[in-house]
């Protein structure tokens, strides 16, 4: 197990290093670093000073070393717009995004697995067909449009739920969370549903395909032959087997949910880091964009690592290796 973790950590480090090179190349080789790192409003003197300060007149490898050094130290430049360190700005918005992403994932799993199980156990029933049609629609609908329709239906027409913002928040571990207050929770519902739609369709498909495959296995019949209740056969023998692909894919999708929260946050004015990214892109606040990018890469790598660990916990064949552990 320890060997496994170490090996995965090494792999992660390699990916981070590769991404650092890519980001660096993106800024310094493809783009013009002066545009990225120096505010367009700076005058000639300031520019010259900044170029010298940032070492943009140095050879590439020296610049790369500096870039890595400052990135490791958490210095990713200062926001042109807000005048504060870019990384801090992004980090400050991170909990809102995380809250939204996790709420969406939770919804996708809590609804998707039972629906997928149902559709998989009774593929030819009316309910099974309805579930599958719904999941096809969920795949086709663009997220932002679904979000707008949700607002129109539930906020504008029915007036049941608020249309945007985080609502009232409460503090936990020194961070503000919406789900701890009634008002905040009401604000969380629509964005979470919106962000969950696509993943819900995915979970349904995965769970259905897994169920159809697993339900035909001899071990399911053997479990029934032991006299187990249907609840135990489905809830333990089938569920535990379909959880392996679902968890793997979902874990990997957490990154994509965080990325897609850019859209949902923009629709629902949810003050997360995705909304910050869009604002920064529109305002040409590039240090913030770079900070977001590097943070996201790091996040992705961490997520992949955690997913692998969970995966290995779910599947004894991986956890224990081929033979006796």
């Amino acid at each position: 197990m320890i060997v496994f973790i170490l090996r995965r950590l090494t792999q992660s480090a390699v990916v981070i290093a590769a991404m650092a090179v890519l980001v660096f190349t993106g800024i310094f080789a493809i783009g013009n670093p002066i545009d990225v790192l120096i505010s367009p409003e700076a005058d000639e003197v300031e520019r010259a000073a900044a170029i010298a300060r940032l070492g943009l007149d140095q050879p590439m490898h020296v610049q790369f070393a500096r870039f890595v050094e400052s990135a490791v130290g958490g210095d990713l430049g200062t926001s042109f717009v807000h005048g504060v360190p870019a990384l801090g700005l992004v980090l400050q918005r991170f909990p809102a995004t995380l809250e939204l992403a996790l709420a969406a994932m939770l919804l996708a799993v809590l609804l998707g697995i039972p629906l997928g199980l149902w559709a998989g156990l009774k593929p030819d029933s009316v309910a099974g067909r309805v579930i599958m049609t719904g999941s096809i629609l969920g795949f086709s609908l663009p997220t932002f449009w679904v979000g707008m329709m949700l607002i129109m239906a539930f906020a504008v027409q029915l007036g049941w739920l608020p249309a945007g913002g985080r609502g009232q928040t409460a503090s936990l571990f020194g961070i503000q969370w919406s789900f701890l207050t009634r008002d905040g929770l009401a604000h969380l519902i629509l964005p979470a549903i919106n962000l969950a739609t696509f993943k819900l369709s995915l979970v349904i498909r995965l769970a259905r395909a897994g169920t159809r495959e697993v339900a035909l296995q001899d071990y399911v019949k053997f479990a029934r032959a032991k006299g187990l209740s249907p609840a135990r056969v489905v809830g333990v023998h089938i569920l535990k087997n379909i959880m392996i692909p679902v968890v793997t894919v979902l874990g990997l999708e957490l990154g994509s949910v965080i990325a897609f929260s850019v859209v949902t946050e923009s629709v629902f004015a949810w003050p997360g880091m995705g909304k910050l990214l869009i604002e920064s892109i529109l305002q040409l606040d590039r240090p913030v964009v770079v900070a977001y990018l590097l943070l996201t890469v790091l996040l992705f790598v961490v997520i992949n690592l955690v997913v692998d660990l969970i995966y290995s916990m779910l599947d004894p064949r991986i956890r224990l290796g081929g033979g006796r552990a």
Partner: protein
Amino acid sequence: MTQPLLRVENLQTHFATRAGTVKAVNGVSFDLRRGEILGLVGESGSGKSVTGQSILGLVDLPGRIVGGRVLFDGEDLVTAGEKRLRAIRGRRIAMIFQDPMMTLNPVLSVETQMVEAVLAHDKVGRAEARRRSRDALGRVGIASPDERLAAYPHQFSGGMRQRVAIAIALLHSPDLILADEPTTALDVTIQAQILFEVQTLCRETGTALLWVTHDLAVVSALADRVAVMYAGRIVETGPIADVIQAPRHPYTRGLLDSVPSRNRRGVPLRSIPGMAPSALDLPQGCAFQPRCGRADAACSVMPDLAPDAHAWRCWHPHDADAQGAAA
């Protein structure tokens, strides 16, 4: 005569497929007494496995029991509700499947899978359930059962997994075990070991055994009686010695002629000509007639199975003493 433990009467299990109805089990009847071992023999597709699964109501859709009765201790399992069946499954009738690689859930530990089987029928504590599981593993010859309980199926060899499956089947000392080719997927030596052990365990506990297999040689070493199935029907049944010594149905004889150990050296093995018929397109009357050297016009009417101890479904049976003569 006392009531048999299991009486299958005119059992019919059909599969509704897009291409038509497959009559996998088409009027099968047999009795099984307490402690008796019956071998149910046939090629793949003969309906023998479906017969076994029909007894416990474990046939998956599109398969369905469309007729007949399965009387277990006088109770009809075909009409019994799912709840009633559940109380019988694993407790009074246990089942062992063909491929030990597939019968244990790969993501659950052996302990989980054994303990749940205990708890499905007995209200005992976990510790007690665990103790019983460990004892059951010991009984089927698994060394250091305590350690093995915590393991997962992939850490066992095929033979060991089948022992675990047998141990699970024996947990509640059932009256009947349905064994669906449980040794086919194993090495020959392990196959022999397991056969011997199962036989011993059944004799000790007085458990009846329905041994489903394609292998007549296995049955001849194990069973008290044998029923030979072809295309969804029993074509010959009787005490094992009678059937082996004097097979009457041409199909049974064909099967015996293709068993290597039964033939004298130098005599070439004979296989049955032709192929097993498509279950969708069975000939009128006797299903074996297209492959049978003795078939004539009479065979287009299905012969009946006499209610005798040794009975056959054939208009032109071999003579009782004709064993060994050239066919």
